[in-house]
């Protein structure tokens, strides 16, 4: 059982790390601020979610697991709203020169 959980953790965390890689590649490669914002908020939040998922079996007790999930939900809600605000700034200042 513990081995199965470990494999689950490794898979989920690896997938999460892959999405962080994708997000960073997007940041480095995309041409303007709006697309970079897209890469950052989508890929990285998914990556964090997968990392949290992978760490859940290792959390100490139900409270620890709940806290991990709350961290992710909080980041998700904040990122969704803040990216709106950032996108407005990006529109206001125009595309990059």
């Amino acid at each position, binding site marked *: 059982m513990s081995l199965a959980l470990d494999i689950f953790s490794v898979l989920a965390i690896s997938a999460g790390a892959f999405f962080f890689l994708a997000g960073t590649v997007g940041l480095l490669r995309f041409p303007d601020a709006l697309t970079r914002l897209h890469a950052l908020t989508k890929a990285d939040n998914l990556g964090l979610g997968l990392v949290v998922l992978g760490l859940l079996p290792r959390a100490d007790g139900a409270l620890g697991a709940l806290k991990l999930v709350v961290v992710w939900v*909080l980041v998700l*809600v*904040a990122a969704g*709203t*803040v990216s709106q*605000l950032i996108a*407005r700034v990006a529109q206001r200042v125009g595309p990059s020169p």
Partner: protein
Amino acid sequence: MTLAWAFDAILAATVLAVAAWTIVARETFAAVVGFVAYGLLLALVWVRLAAPDVALTEAAIGGGVTGVLLLGAAARLRGTAGVLVDERPGAAMRLVVGVLCGIVTAALAATVLLLPDPAPTLAPEAAANLTTTGVGNPITGVLMAFRALDTLLEKVVLVLALIGVWSLAPDRFWGGAPGPERRAQPDDALVFLARLLPPVGIVIGVYLLWVGADEPGGAFQGGALLAAMWLLAMMAGLATAPAVSERRLRLVLVAGPAVFLAIGLAGFALADAFLAYPEAYAKPLIIIIEVVKMLAVAATLGLLVMGPPERPPQR
């Protein structure tokens, strides 16, 4: 443990690179963004140094309120930077200063490498005496009992700093509210966030205070989070800055050091020394001080960020 070492090396390199960026960045705004990123990254370093209490403080102060304070100042000073470009020192001067700073760094690095082994530590003493305080978190024990005088004086420093900031207001604004008049901003996304986050933040702040007795956390960390949430509500226009002459506000500000001082003085009668707690009541007394302190810290930090009064008092 080579992978742990690799992680630490990446972390240290990133922190140093961001620190260097805040110095060399051409615009102040970019430098402040770098500074906030630096503060958030430093929290990771503190976790690696097995000091989660400090990590919480550094995140809340370095990444949170100091960043906002500097941002506000940068926005107001915007446009004045160009005037000073001529004063930028020349290459020779920069080289000399660089070499001097390099020497300072080398001396500090040598000190780090030559630190005595085994390292001196007070951890066993703190652990041995922790039971008398009734709290389980050694840092809270140090802050509230073993070195309570430091903490008391620090509370006084916070209030003094706030008096200093307020006293910079022009006479006609004395007693008014800090910050400009609030404009109703129809920025729905921001208002949404400012309605959503503060309740969560208040719960987490109070939670940090509550677990601070036995686990990492405490009044500073909780108070700094509350201050951040207050400022967030204010940025969205959901709350207005209070007038500095308001009596309730001043009571909260003074209550932090005053309650601490009163309990400290009571120590003369009840436990034979200033700031000594009678053993049976140590934990409840510490919790009373911490609750009052958290509110006072939150109010003081928030008001320090808002700055001196800028509106005439309404009479």
